[in-house]
């Protein structure tokens, strides 16, 4: 009896908290979308709870502005973010597995080393990074935005922790006995087990890369290689005549759509909870 009562209380509390939080989360999207439907002049005057009727106008001006190639920018961002997410999760998982499942001399050194660089703030190396990229001819190219994600200590650590709690080494041994090669074992057995972890980190990496402004602003120069955040910054830096907040909000809105799609696609994996039960045994 008591337990059911508690459950009821907990459920009500859960609903309350969830509703408040959802409201807060959706609120900002609402504001963003409302702002994207208003003209610059309306926005200047202040805030409104009701949408305006400039949605199409703003969308048109975003779509048709040749000097801010928004759709090209979205494609660039998609390329950079998907490649980063793929490389980052695959190689982090691989590295984590390498350190988790094998015994070798430098194992502890390697692990400690990664843990040490885990804390390195990215801004610290920015200037040296720019100089290096310029020297090896990768300035104004998308590669410097993608390749470094192979070495992501934080993602590695996540994968490692995940392996610790969900991959019994007996499974690996069993695979070996079945004659599976090491790479095969990783790709066919370990990776599927890590799916939730990979999905989680893929989303985070994708979003992080999508919203990254700092590094692309240093590296990218030509318009046809610009990613979405630089385009938005460029637009915000436009002169007073072309300065159009409605357009900026529309651009931000348009920029969010692809990540929402990717998020919804990947979130299925997490929510489905593939690993629950079965795989472990």
């Amino acid at each position, binding site marked *: 009896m008591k337990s059911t009562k508690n459950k009821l209380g907990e459920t009500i509390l859960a609903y309350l908290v969830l509703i408040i939080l959802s409201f807060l989360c959706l609120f900002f999207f609402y504001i963003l979308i409302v702002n994207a439907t208003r003209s610059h002049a309306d926005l*200047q005057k*202040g805030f409104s709870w009701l949408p305006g009727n400039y949605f199409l106008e703003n969308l048109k001006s975003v779509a048709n502005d040749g*000097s801010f190639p928004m759709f090209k920018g979205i494609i660039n961002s998609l390329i950079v973010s998907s490649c980063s997410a793929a490389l980052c999760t695959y190689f982090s998982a691989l590295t984590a597995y390498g350190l988790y499942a094998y015994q070798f001399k430098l194992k502890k050194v390697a692990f400690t080393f990664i843990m040490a660089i885990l804390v390195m703030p990215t801004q610290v190396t920015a200037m040296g990074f720019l100089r290096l990229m310029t020297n090896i001819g990768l300035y104004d190219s998308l590669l410097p935005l993608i390749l470094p994600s192979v070495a992501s200590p934080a993602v590695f650590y996540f994968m490692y922790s995940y392996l610790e709690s969900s991959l019994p080494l007996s499974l690996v041994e069993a695979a070996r006995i079945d004659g599976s090669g090491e790479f095969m074992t990783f790709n066919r057995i370990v990776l599927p087990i890590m799916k939730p972890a990979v999905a989680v980190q893929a989303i985070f990496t994708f979003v992080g890369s999508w919203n990254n402004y700092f590094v692309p*602003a240093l590296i990218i*120069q*030509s318009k046809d290689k610009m990613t979405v955040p630089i385009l938005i910054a460029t637009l915000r830096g436009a002169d007073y005549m*072309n300065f159009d907040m409605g357009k900026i909000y529309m651009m931000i809105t348009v920029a969010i759509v692809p990540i929402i799609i990717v998020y919804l696609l990947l979130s299925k994996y997490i929510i489905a909870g593939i690993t629950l039960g079965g795989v472990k045994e």
Partner: protein
Amino acid sequence: MKKRVVSLLMATAISASLLTACGGSGSGTANATGETGGDAAAAGGTEGAVVNIYSWNDEFRTRLEAVYPEVESTSDDGTVTKLKDGVEIHWIINPNQDGVYQQKLDEALLNQATAADDDKVDIFLSETDYVFKYTDADADVAMPLTDLGIDPDTDLADQYPFTRTTASDQNGVQRGSTWQCCPGLLVYRRDIAKDVFGTDDPAAVGEKVKDWDTLKATAAELKAKGYYTFASYADTFRLYGNSISEPWVTAGETTVKVDPQIMNWIKDSKEWLDAGYFDKTVKGQWNDDWNKSMSSSSKVFAFLLPAWGIDFTLNPNWDGETGAWGVTNPPQEYNWGGSYIHAATGTDNPQHVKDIILALTANKDNLIKISRDYLDFTNTVSGMQEAATDASFASDFLGGQNAYEYFAPVAENIQIAPLSSYDQGCVELIQNAFSDYFQGNVDYDRAKANFETAIKERYPDITEIQWAE
């Protein structure tokens, strides 16, 4: 390989014939680079095939397209403009935000000597707040105009003298030129003027605001009726800042000198804010509160704005009837804004650069066209004087008043402040540091200390800050 030899040849040719830009070895090498040539602009010179222009937006491009006769077409994305002689202008646009524009420009200018000809910066733009960083004679990144074959005293005689001073280095050598000139006025709400003074006549209101002492008395009058004179202390800063007697940092020194005029701004701002002549909820400019203070529900009487400020800031923010605003003389002449065009030292297209600078900043017809099409107050004394009496320049927004009538005399009387390459940081940071003091968050000494910390952070070579009494 061949190309490198050619580049070398051209470099020699250019340096040998900087003044005339008409090297004898010209024709041969020009053909070697595959230039189609033939047109007036390229005929005599050893010009490169690409003119690289660095800017932070497309403002300059639109002006150039509008008035430069050699323009043939611009690509859809706005990155390449083809000229009739086959030369291409490449627009290298970087956002001003977070200093990205200056960072990339600086990088390019530092590599100018070693860059391939077609990658060299040919023209770059700067704003009044940091123009001196680039016109500095020691830096020598902007070419003296005379080296291009422009004689400022004859070719630019019709420009406003203060714009020529602004674009000159410490030795008085002019190293840039602008099409735009940004004298500011006092823009006031006619309904409030009627309510308080019983008249909205620009001349009568002008009398009420003619200098700071009179304006202060007027502010008390406005206050008595529940109005604010200006929105915030940031609005008045440019007037004081424009009239400093010594540069923020004297060339060759590492001391920031805070001018007595700036101290006056601090003193007056505190006094005005405490007295309720400013709207306390408005902190600085370019934010929502400031925008809102320009709407019909606001109690702010006036703003201090240049031409672009009226058309692109005040107008969109105003939600009442058109014709509700009027302009009159400010308490003190000032300038706000302006983009300067510079020829980069080492350019391989001196003839094109010269042509562009002359077409955009020294041709009266072109300038008037820019004024009509883009509402810039342009850099031609005679042209603007004509506009002042030309009824077609009257503005509906200002109730049929012709603002040029007031702009022109202000422009003629502007005494531009002596510049230094530290201006941008000083202007920005002093307003920021003292904003806390005006709002009562910190005391006076703390605000001073905060400015000192911030300025040393921005400019590592600054060793000392001197405060005027």
